[in-house]
């Protein structure tokens, strides 16, 4: 119990400090920080529409956060969630525009599976290179990110191009689109949010209850001891990258099936990289990642309303950056936390 409180303490205190520092910045530009934060919160949670918007933004962030967090738990730094996400969406888009004849009960899981396999396969390339040649995954996944970017822009301007104007793929079949849970105005909340929470539960169960989860953690903590204990390090690195990639692919495919219904090339918009910050803030814990994603999603959504009162929406980027800085340098926060406890 004490451990849980302590692990929550660092991110929570970090957020508080970040908000305080950003408040000073808002003061410095001559605005009222309390009012600004009020608008921010109102923009993110103040109406049904705002809440739905926040949840829509949160969905892919949970999944990319899980993707990167899972990698960290296995001792690999998957910086390529961005590319795996796009690859998942792209491959699913290629097939899912022809799924009109299938009932949703088949088309939806099938499309998801294609997206996850594409993400997994793409990440597994980096895993395989690390296991066989020692090539570092940070380098190879970044290279794969660029590879994806060029493949994606080729595909939607060439073979898959449809209509005129911005490059886009044809719309996926209606039967492959995720059901809508709630609709307010133009906002549609799809079942993607449920999928992302199920994925978090899956990650939790997998890591803490299964033998494969045990092996992946063992390899992450100490590959020498893992090999000594009869656990194949090479196999588990590939597997860990593949699962991480599958989660990123799922992020891409839920965006495709639940939000855009088309592949738009640059669909991810940096969500893969946001996954890194979210995994850090969530301390690589699936539940923590859900809340971290919600935080980032809410900041992004609420910032628009804040901007109407003349406070740049980039303030939330400052908040996010300070949070990441403090979580990464958790000793600073732990020292503050420890001092508080002594006084209390």
């Amino acid at each position: 119990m004490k451990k849980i409180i302590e692990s929550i303490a660092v991110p929570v205190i970090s957020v508080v400090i970040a908000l305080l520092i950003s408040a000073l910045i808002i003061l410095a530009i001559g605005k009222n920080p309390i009012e600004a934060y009020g608008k921010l919160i109102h923009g993110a949670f103040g109406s049904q529409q705002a809440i739905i918007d926040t949840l829509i933004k949160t969905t892919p962030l949970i999944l990319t956060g899980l993707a990167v967090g899972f990698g960290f738990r296995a001792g690999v730094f998957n910086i390529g969630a961005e590319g795996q996400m796009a690859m998942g969406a792209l491959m699913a888009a290629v097939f899912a525009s022809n799924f009109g004849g299938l009932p949703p009960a088949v088309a939806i899981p099938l499309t998801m599976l294609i997206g996850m396999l594409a993400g997994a396969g793409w990440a597994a390339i980096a895993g395989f290179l690390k296991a066989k040649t020692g090539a570092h995954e940070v380098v190879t996944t970044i290279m794969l990110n660029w590879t994806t970017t060029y493949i994606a822009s080729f595909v939607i301007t060439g073979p898959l191009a449809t209509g005129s104007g911005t490059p886009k793929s044809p719309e996926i079949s209606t039967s492959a689109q995720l059901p809508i849970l709630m609709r307010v105005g133009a906002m549609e909340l799809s079942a993607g949010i449920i999928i992302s929470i199920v994925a978090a539960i899956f990650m939790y169960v997998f890591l803490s209850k299964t033998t494969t989860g045990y092996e992946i953690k063992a390899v992450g903590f100490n590959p020498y001891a893992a090999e000594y204990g009869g656990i194949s390090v090479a196999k588990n690195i590939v597997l860990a990258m593949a699962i991480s990639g599958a989660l990123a692919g799922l992020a891409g495919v839920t965006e495709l099936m639940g939000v855009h219904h088309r592949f738009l090339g640059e669909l991810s918009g940096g969500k893969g990289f946001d996954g890194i910050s979210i995994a850090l803030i969530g301390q690589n814990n699936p539940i923590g990642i859900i809340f971290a994603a919600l935080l980032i999603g809410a900041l992004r959504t609420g910032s628009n309303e804040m901007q109407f009162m003349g406070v740049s929406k980039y303030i939330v980027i400052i908040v996010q950056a300070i949070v990441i800085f403090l979580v990464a340098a958790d000793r600073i926060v732990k020292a503050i936390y420890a001092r508080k406890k002594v006084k209390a």
Partner: protein
Amino acid sequence: MDDLKKDFKQERHEDYAVELIEITKKFPGVLANDRVTVKIKKGEVHAIVGENGAGKSTLMNQLYGLYRPDSGEIRIFGQKKVFNGPRDAIKAGIGMVHQHFMLVDTLTVAENVVLGNEPVKGLNFDLKKARQEVRELSEKYGLYVDVDAKIEDIPVGMQQRVEIIKTLYRGASIIILDEPTAVLTPQEVEELFVIMRNLQKSGKTLLFISHKLNEVMEISDRITVMRGGKVTGELITKDTNEREIARAMVGRDVVLKLDKAPHKPKEVVFEVKDLWVKDNRHLDAVRGVSLQVRKGEVVGIAGVAGNGQSELVEAITGLRKVEKGEIIFEGKNVTNKHPRILREMGMTHIAEDRLKHALIKPFPAYYNVVLGRHYKRPFANGAFLNHKEIKRYTTELMEEFDVRPRIIEHLGGNFSGGNQQKLVVGREIKAGPKFMVVAQPTRGLDVGAIEFIHRQILKMREQDLGILLISMELEEIFSLSDRILVMYEGQIMGEVKPEETTIEEVGLMMAGKRLEEIRGGRNEENN
């Protein structure tokens, strides 16, 4: 009565350099120091001995300001002190030489000594003055060092002298030496003792933390023995003996010499034929080793560290590629097989480096204890871990092998060295092996734990297991082995039986002489 005692103690504050009075320090789940009182006289060498986990290091870390006691009092030269950090302790005249040196490898000796208190000329670092001051200190106390050598280029013994000079440079009059001999060769230990006597002569007070009884007997004036966080003995060295210290350490009589029952070995269980293995630099480390181990037999491999023993062990256990040759286990060729296959077949391995190979530090004890068998019944049901059974088994193992603290959730890295080793030894024995590779099983352990582990090894021998023992400790090799092989530069120099050989003969083989040369030469002399 209590008051009277207190008064009596207060009268003599001036006699003591250090007084630790009723020190209590708790960690989550562990009472590391339980009202510990230790008084160290000015100018003496005071040994603090105890098993791993007895609370010695915790006590010293409080004296050095790294931890704050929960309760109790620290007095230095009679004055009450509260240390908020090592800086305060250093100011009070305390210096500490840690077990793991705190030196910057790429800086020179002189630079390391003055680091943090650099002499300056204007705004610049005054290297000339630093070199001169370090040289003066080293000459004054007979601590030979090369002031301009880089730390990475000098031997461990000299690095330790640099650490000692560092404490002197900061004006220490009380020097804590935390297990200083653990990393030294026998010759270097002798040199250290000469230095310690010099320091004592010039009025320094020394605290010597150790669990090597012969060293304590040789160098100390008085001894404080600790066990389970408490002081269990205060002895005057010249009036005591090793047996008495050992009893205070472990709370019972310790058999310092093992009785090895005669045991008839059975058929060959394990065999290596003309094995060639490369090291990390791709040089031949094992060059044509052949050996056999029979059931119910301990085969010991002696040798100076770095003569291919580690590579041999790794190749046998599937952790390193075999370039040439064969490994045969229970009649099957298992060359270059994965550790999991070897474990399935009944080969287990106590690795020489427990922190690198044998233990996953962030895993709780109950995960560490099933490593290697985590995927099998009863610890797993299909794809899922059976936590209930894993925890039950861990409790049983910790009881059986006396692992302390007996907390199954305790993280692997948080146990003391001896208890980590007990976890590993317990795991590898209870896996029910037919053949076991045992490398450096007692490195860094105290007498109690060493005795315990030696008994376990002999017990397995009596149960007809084949055991290959690799050790740098000749005493260990001699007292456990049925046959001794000596390894030098990747080759076996000869095979002898412990009762038919001498330490000198094995020593000559360790230095690269073949048995035939030694015995041949001796026969000529006899003729």
